[in-house]
């Protein structure tokens, strides 16, 4: 039986990677968290010795994910990414870096993250993103916030009326952050957990 301190370390290290791993199976973030949390609870109650906590957890999450898929009627539950099925080994191998990317996206400044998501996830053009953000940002609340922060009207206008060029700029800087600083920054973030 593992000590609760060991389980906490496993949790803080592998919770998000396991979520990404389960996401390759289930494709539904809500279901993913249940499966991973149940697996940790099961590890906690495990009375036999567990030599390799990480391997035990991946296997538990896999089994639970497959069970969940079988319940929804899938005959041969396989992990997949956006392009189609991948191998279980692949899903496990990818989960670590994907968890880091997830954390890096989380850590991006909001405007950059929005631009990135609208472009890469939703496939909007930079023009569309600029329009979208201009509408959503043109709110009294944000104006007040900007004023409170002591921005000049010029700066507020710049902040709110972002151009195509600004969008492109935001995205390239976001990608740069993820590419260059991402994994290293994530190590840094993990060390805080």
């Amino acid at each position: 039986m593992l000590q609760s301190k060991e389980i906490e370390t496993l949790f803080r290290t592998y919770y998000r990677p396991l979520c990404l791993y389960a996401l390759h199976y289930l494709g539904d973030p809500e279901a993913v968290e249940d499966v991973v949390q149940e697996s940790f609870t099961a590890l906690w109650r495990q009375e036999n010795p567990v030599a390799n906590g990480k391997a035990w957890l991946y296997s538990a999450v896999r089994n639970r994910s497959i069970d969940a898929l079988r319940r929804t009627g899938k005959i041969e539950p396989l992990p997949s990414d956006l392009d189609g099925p991948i191998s279980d080994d692949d899903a496990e191998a990818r989960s670590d870096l994907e968890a880091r990317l997830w954390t890096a996206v989380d850590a991006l400044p909001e405007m950059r993250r929005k631009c990135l998501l609208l472009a890469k996830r939703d496939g909007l053009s930079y023009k569309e993103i600029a329009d979208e953000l201009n509408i959503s940002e043109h709110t009294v609340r944000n104006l007040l916030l900007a004023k409170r922060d002591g921005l000049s009207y010029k700066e507020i206008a710049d902040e709110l009326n972002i151009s195509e060029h600004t969008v492109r700029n935001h995205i390239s800087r976001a990608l740069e952050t993820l590419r260059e600083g991402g994994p290293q920054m994530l190590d840094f973030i993990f060390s805080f957990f």
Partner: protein
Amino acid sequence: MNQIDEHKLSFVLRHYRPGLFDTQKAWEKVSGMTSRHPMRRILLWAMPIAAALIFGVFLSWRNTWTEYNAYDLAQAFTLKDGTHVTLAPGATLRYQPHKAPRQVEMTGKVHYAVARDESHPFRVIAPAATVTVLGTVFQVSEDRVDVTEGRVRVDGPQGEGVVLTAGQSALLQDGVPTLEETALPNPSAWATGVFRYDATPLDDVLKDLSAYYGVPLQVKGDSTGKSLTGEFSTDNLDEILELIGLALEIELVRE
């Protein structure tokens, strides 16, 4: 970013939502659940035991006996219902104040001034009789019951009973209480500390005092036709004898 990384990023961005897969929140949830779990298991079997224990404690509390003893001297106590009891030397009394506050068991001689409660009779269980009253002053000993105030019902072990009123006594012999006509005037002086006489013939006064002090008393001279009215505290026999002697112009001596 190479090709594989692009796949990974696309996959992440496809599913990304702010606040999702929050390690800290999830940890609080999971650790909260699991750390509570063993406690729940303990509670499952511990609660009936605890309940039984509490019930047992309650029962034993309810059934607790309070006991009084008098050794060398008469001892006075007040029971839960306000009844005053005075135990003669060697007497014992016990009762269950939480279960039956108006029922006492006793041995020896005990004087009672029972707090009045019409709806709850006060019961004395003595070796020779059971005495039931509402609110009176009386005393019970091994062989007699003496009533100072009110009415008392005395039942023998075989069920025969008599009702006594103030000034009456019952002798308890062979399990049958019988009314005693020649009761001593102050059967409870030992407990109350007071001798009260109301035109009591002098011979009865001497019997009374003799019985109380355990000393035979005699009149020097003629005592016929003399009677006593008055009240004495029992502190000092010699003082009482002197007072009576002065009042009746006689001389009283110890034998």
